[in-house]
């Protein structure tokens, strides 16, 4: 079985967001770039599965759409345990563009399982995984919180209201994974970091696809009003405020 994990290169989640003077872009100086946390969990699960079922999982490939500056993030994924990588050499535009590029890049490569994180921590789109499956005409299962390959069979849960559903799917398919798919991100060992330098990284030129949306301006939220403090012996006041002022209960 061949597993593909789609990665997005995002600013570290603790980054303080600053706008450039023109409000048309972000000031990204000094930003640390990381693998999008949900993609990192997807990759971690793929590696766990390869370790657990070496006879079943033949290879893990990672792919990203990004310029050369995203290569340290790709090398990190290789250091964690991916076998090889593909980079589509284009600045990521909207989800339609990214998913279309991914679909073009992998259409002849017959992956059995394609994993995508449910959202990216920068643009919070939640769209690439489902769009990719539609571009490829593959089934997709979303909010996947459990994936196993015991006896070579795919066993899969998706989260729903109040619990989960066990899902059966044809192969190949796209799993869009939620927190819980792996408990902890894999940490790259020194040996992995050394090996990552020589693992294959295929660079593909982008296909001719137009983005359908464009971010045209940015703003930061207004400062929040100060917190209303209520004395602990006066909880009825809190309940009255929630009921009459905030109208949330």
């Amino acid at each position, binding site marked *: 079985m061949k597993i593909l994990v789609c990665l997005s290169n995002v*600013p570290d*989640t*603790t*980054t303080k*967001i600053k*706008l450039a003077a023109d409000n048309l872009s972000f000031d990204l100086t000094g930003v640390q770039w990381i693998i999008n946390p949900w993609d990192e969990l997807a990759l971690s699960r793929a590696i766990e599965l390869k370790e657990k079922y070496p006879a079943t999982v033949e290879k893990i490939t990672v792919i990203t759409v990004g310029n050369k500056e995203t290569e340290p993030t790709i090398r990190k994924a290789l250091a964690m345990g991916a076998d090889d990588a593909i980079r589509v050499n284009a600045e990521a535009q909207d989800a*339609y563009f990214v998913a279309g590029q991914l679909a073009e890049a992998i259409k002849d490569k017959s992956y059995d399982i394609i994993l995508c994180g*449910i*959202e990216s*921590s920068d643009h*919070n*789109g*939640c*769209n690439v995984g*489902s*769009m990719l*499956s*539609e*571009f490829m005409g593959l*089934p*997709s*299962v*979303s*909010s996947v919180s459990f994936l196993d390959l015991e006896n070579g069979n795919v066993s899969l*849960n998706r*989260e*729903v*209201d*109040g*619990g989960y*559903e*066990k*899902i*059966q799917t*044809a192969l190949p398919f796209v799993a*869009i994974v*939620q*927190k819980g798919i792996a408990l902890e991100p894999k940490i790259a060992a020194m040996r992995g970091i050394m090996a990552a330098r020589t693992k294959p990284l295929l660079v593909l030129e982008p296909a001719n696809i137009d*983005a*359908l*949306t*464009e*971010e045209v301006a*940015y*703003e*930061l*939220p207004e400062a929040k*009003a100060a*917190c*209303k*403090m*209520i004395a*602990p012996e006066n*909880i009825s006041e*809190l*309940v009255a*405020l*929630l009921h009459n002022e905030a109208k*949330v*209960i």
Partner: protein
Amino acid sequence: MSVLVYIENWDGKFKKLSFELISYAQGIARQLSTSVVALSIGNVAEEELKKAGNYGASKVIAVNNPKLNELVNQAYASVISELALKEEATVLVFANNMTGKAVAPRVAVKLNAGLVSGVIALPSSTEPFVVKKKIYTGKAYASVTIKSPVKIITLSQNSFGLNESAVDVSIENFVPQLRDNDFATSVLETNKQTGKVLLTDAEIVVSGGRGMKSAEFWAPIEELAEILGGATACSRPVADEGWRPHHEHVGQTGKIIAPNVYFAFGISGAIQHLGGVSSSKIIVAVNKDRDAPIFEAANYGVVGDVTTVLPELINKIKEVKGQ
């Protein structure tokens, strides 16, 4: 021309979220001088379908086929796309919830439509078509132009609210062309407690942190969630300690949520935690440390001991709710 809104049902009933989507779709329809068509998939009684008219849907299309009782992403996307073409929809509206996230992007590819997810307001202009959304988990906003002829929006829950504007509503039943290819996935087994809502879709979330001291003190958190019809959640240390399951972890690396109200008990509010909850409309924090960063993010705060404040809060809320 029309604005097509997909309204989900829960065991045959619509929720506030469904009506918020129709209200929002009606707002766009006014801007475009057109009308709203609401699409329901599943077994929903006519009385319930008619309620869509109270919020401005002049037509409701009901698709009721047992094969569509479970969410099958591909099949739902096919049905919705087929209807969008039939109704000549130029704008499609979905919820930015589990179902919307699973289906709207597939529809976008089928219709070559630009999609913006997590939108928080009506378009600031329709020519060009510009909508605003949160990015960086609420740390900034982006204005996004949709350039394609057909536009798709997923609306962030609780960002628009309800807007009653009753119109005459007609109900049509529609029999879609289902293709076997669209049913490559199926539900083998369902494991859920009825009446519980999905954390990411919940209107009210009651959450506990390390300040709750141990797993055995979680009963009042669950009780409060139950009284309010909300979901329970926790901070990362709580999930790491194994006091609560990992699927309840909210924060930047856990679930990202945007409920109407978020109750934080014994949560200090580290930046990673706030990243997952800062889109909540109202945050209520109870913590013994006045300097905890959660009070920077909260709207209402109590400096006090959770073990005494929480039971008191439950009693008072029961009084208000008449329980």
